[in-house]
């Protein structure tokens, strides 16, 4: 099973996701902000990161963090699952989805809207941790 790092400022989301992930045999580490990101992620050494987009200090901190990780040669291969409460099809000029994933803008493996069904989350994580996908 995998070591998963959750980076989210919402303690309730962290706790509920932790229950689901630990219930499926994963080991969970938590970070509640995106400060000192590279050092923290390097220290934890996760197999996968679940990353929120909006943080209190910066509504785009998740994107910034994903780009920072992507720039780091040692960390860029860690798969990142972006998680946000903002609707994928919000139709409000700022909706985004998997189709927005790109190296410059959203350098992550996948995007999921909060709240996420436990089965969907577990399936998605399994997909992301598949060895062939990691090699790619």
């Amino acid at each position, binding site marked *: 099973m995998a070591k998963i790092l959750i980076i989210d400022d919402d303690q309730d989301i962290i706790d509920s996701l932790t229950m689901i992930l630990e219930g499926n045999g994963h080991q969970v580490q938590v970070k509640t902000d995106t400060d000192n990101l590279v050092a923290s992620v390097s220290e934890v050494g996760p197999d996968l990161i679940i990353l929120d987009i*909006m943080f209190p200090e910066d*509504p785009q901190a998740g994107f910034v963090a994903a780009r920072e990780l992507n720039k780091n040669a040692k960390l860029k291969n860690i798969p990142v699952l972006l998680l946000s*409460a903002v609707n994928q099809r919000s139709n409000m000029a700022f909706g985004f989805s998997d189709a927005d994933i790109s190296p410059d803008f959203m350098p992550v493996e996948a995007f999921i809207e909060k709240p996420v069904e436990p089965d969907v989350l577990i399936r998605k994580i399994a997909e992301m941790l598949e060895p062939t996908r990691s090699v790619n």
Partner: protein
Amino acid sequence: MTEKARHSTLSFDWGVSTSYSADLRARELADRVWWFITMRWIAAGVCTAFGVADLAGLVPGHIPVAYFLVAAVFLAAGNVLYCRITKSLLEPEIDRAGLRILLIFEMIGDFVALSLLTYATGTIQTPLPMFFILHVVLATLFFSRRTSLVITIGAWLGGVMPLILEWLGVLPMISIFDSPFKPFVLKEPAAMAGYVFGFAACLFVSWYLVSEITTSLKLRESQLEDAYGMLSRLDREKSQATLRATHELKAPFAAIKSYVYTLRDGYCGPLPEKAQSVVTRIGERCDRLMEKITAIIHLSNLKTLVLTDMHFSPVNLTKLIADEAAEAALLAEPQNIRVVNHAADEAEVYVLGSAEYLHTLFSNLTRNAIDYSTPGVDVEITMRIKARRVSVRVRDHGIGIPNENLGKIFDEHFRSNNAVAHHPNGTGLGLPMVKEIARLHGAVIQVSSELGKGSHFTVSFDSVEPNI
């Protein structure tokens, strides 16, 4: 949507108005330079025609034709050069400073040609010096007050120099009419001074009046630019605030729902049957509330949009309807309702609009048609094209709308009793959204309904060419 556009939307980097207006001004300057060149071709043509007409003896008086032909060649040769330089100044991007310097040189060249022609046509015997005023007016539009004043002085010298040189005896006097008036002017200092200073007054008053008006217009343009910049900033701030509000309102429900999932799926241990049922209902209520919050924010966002906020382009309505019908069919299938898209048989029709918002409009109409239908019936989508008008009709054979409520269905949160009884979980915001999107697209909505038999909603647009 292009990747760049998508990214810039999300990062709220929608461009700065000043660069847009600067670009617009540069293009305007380039247009004026071309206009100036065109006018010069006409002047060269007129000079040639005049010279030829004079040679043919068609022009009365004693006009030395050679001057006109020289002026024509000078203007034409200058124009060929200006054309080449202008083209080089427009690529790869418009060089505004270069174009301005070129304009100054063009004006100097014009002054030389005009002086020559003024001399050839008897200086005070011709209206040609009036063309100097045209240059003064243009100079006030393109240059600063100081530069345009210098150009005005140049125009004045160009206009009076032939007469002064004739007066000094440097040039022989040319008189195109047999009249004693010109020799009198050259002999009488007061008459000379009257012409020289009268022409100066004419030019400098023109310069003063036009530069005053131009300064005032430039000030207003600058104020409009500031106002546009402020509106753009406010628009960005509004979108950021809406994004933040959406997040702040939805995030707590996302957290609650996440806990509901853990309880429902047994991550906190097994639940008694009744508790399981309550948890499920909490989850469902949470979903409805989140849907409603999204709809409220979406609707308020739509209501504050104006036409200028929209990035309209030709949208293939036939394809959009087909996509929407396919999505609706998936939703309808579990309820044993068939979505029949007759519009698929129609030719491709384009309307000017936002594909995203039009999807929302038709998705709300088809969703409503499904939600208020009874199992086993059809929802039909048809399209009618008449002249340049295209009408899309979404028809259901469902519960219908009571006649007395037809006028209220586009009101926010309004739901008729039979609608609530048939489909309790509606938000009452779908049709208000449809109304706002139709407003933004200049579309007309018509509704017909019969209680117990069904309703049909028709949305009509003006069609456009696909590549406008």
